[in-house]
């Protein structure tokens, strides 16, 4: 039996396989290492960083929902300076491709972050989060207005020599319009989806469960929406896609590949099963083998035909 070729090309980055992990769910790459060897992953995406350190939102920050998870972490992060000093030297040693994730409240924020993160940082790519729904001021704007999205992506693109991944918010009327805007801005890859804005109410205390009222919904509950958006964007825009949103099992991952994702990213799934990436990798490999698929890339978008 021939081995299945798992290597995955994403706009010049070569991943050993199509499995990556989602920003904000995988810390800075070391936390899950005892559960899932980092060198078995195609890549990891780091927690989103901002120019200045952020304490994030008050707790409770999490709420469980039917087959889902609400979070209102609110972009807690050490800030750019501390990231460069303390985290970057460690993450660049990790035996996998490392994608940084950046967030900002203004165009200047994004540019400042992008300028500080170039190819010589050892990072593989820059994922631009224009979609975090938790930050009240500004964050949402870039992710829901095509004009602003184009502007911020092209500013980032101009500021760094790293490949640029635009991470899209699902909280929009027209995901394809957002994807096209990111493409016009020069994005090399699209990453979708971020979380859906949701909330939960504590009926005993008669107030929202999350201290921040709203949070981002992730996990299996949102998988049908994520898959639909990957499908739509694949059909309309000629850029590679990192698909995410509710992937826990290998079957979920195969759905995303067939819908048009070149790589798949695991977020909340890690909380359910810290070995989910490993099991997904194994499952995808077996699926290819059983069907005589020589390269995992051959699955991408197959359900469209």
């Amino acid at each position, binding site marked *: 039996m021939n081995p299945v070729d798992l290597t995955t090309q994403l706009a010049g980055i070569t991943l050993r396989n199509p499995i990556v992990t989602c920003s904000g769910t995988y810390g800075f790459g070391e936390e*899950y290492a005892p559960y899932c060897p980092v060198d078995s992953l195609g890549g990891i995406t780091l927690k989103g960083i901002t120019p200045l350190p952020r*304490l994030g939102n008050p707790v*409770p920050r999490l709420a469980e929902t039917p*087959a889902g*998870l609400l979070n209102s*972490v609110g972009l807690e992060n050490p800030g750019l300076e501390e990231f460069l000093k303390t985290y970057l030297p460690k993450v660049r040693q990790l035996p996998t491709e490392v994608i940084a994730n950046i967030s900002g409240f203004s165009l200047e924020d994004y540019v400042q972050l992008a300028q500080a993160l170039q190819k010589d940082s050892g990072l593989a790519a820059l994922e631009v989060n224009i979609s975090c729904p938790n930050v009240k001021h500004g964050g949402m704007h870039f992710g829901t207005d095509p004009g602003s999205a184009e502007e911020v992506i092209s500013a980032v693109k101009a500021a760094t020599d790293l490949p640029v991944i635009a991470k899209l918010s699902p909280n929009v009327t027209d995901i394809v319009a957002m994807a096209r805007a990111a493409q016009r801005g020069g994005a090399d890859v699209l990453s979708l989806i971020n979380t859906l804005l949701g909330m939960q109410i504590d009926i005993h205390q008669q107030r929202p469960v999350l*201290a921040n009222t709203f949070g981002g919904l992730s996990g299996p509950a949102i998988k049908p929406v994520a898959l639909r958006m990957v499908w739509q964007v694949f059909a309309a825009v000629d850029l590679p896609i990192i698909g995410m949103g509710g992937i826990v099992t290998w079957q979920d991952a195969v759905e995303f590949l067939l819908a048009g994702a070149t790589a798949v990213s695991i977020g909340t799934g890690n*909380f359910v099963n810290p*070995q989910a990436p490993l099991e997904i990798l194994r499952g995808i490999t077996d699926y290819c083998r059983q069907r005589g698929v020589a390269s995992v890339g051959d699955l991408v978008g197959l359900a469209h035909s």
Partner: protein
Amino acid sequence: MLTEGQVILHEPLGDEEQKLRKLVLKSPIASKAEAGQFTAVQVKDSAVPSFDPLLRRPISLAGISSEKEEITLLYRIQGRGTEILARAQVGDRLSMMGPLGCGFSLPAEGELWLIAGGIGIFPLYPLAQKAMAQGLQVRLFWGAENRPFLESAGLTSWQALGIPIELSTLDGSLGHKGLVTEPVGNLLEKQEIRGNIISAATCGPKKMMQAVTELCLARQVPVQVSLEERMGCAVGACLGCAVALIDETGAKVHKKVCQDGPVFQGKEVVWDESC
């Protein structure tokens, strides 16, 4: 470490109406665990996969036997997660992450006061055992709703340790009538204990731990607190379980209950903020 723990014993702890359970598992976690650490256990009641409920549940290690490779979890049935957990049968295998977090540290010498509120008693037992094994003097203050709770939640095992125990109940059905902080405060006030080297460890409702911390710090008694927060990853990767602390420089920082805690120095905790 992700391993399967095999259920060896699973039974009501005390009165059925207290909804407390004792769950003993054969688990490699036992060989590495310390008092104050916890496990994140998958709650599922069926061999058939389901994503509702989705998340693992953090439960403290209430008993650690490295010789027998056994851990004990004590819990109260509160919601759907623990209701499902309660249905595990002897022989079942539960997926567990752990040992997780940083547990209690023991003082080098002197007297260790354990101050518990309600089911906050559970992680303190292995701490008492370890402290006594190291020759420390241990004293327990334990407050709860009423006598049936205390008797159900393990009073006899504590009494078997032969240590001084001060009980409080809200309804006065056993020990002091009122809050656990009152006997703690009273003893701290007493002249004779002033000279001793005392340190404290507390676990219970947040408000109670805050009051305990304030009492202790007012008497220069160092106090460790075991905090609770809702958890996503349980390994420090998601920042769901943040707690606000004041670090050495006086700056407000966030730490993670799951990774940096659940045990923190009481003096560092910023109590009046949710985060």
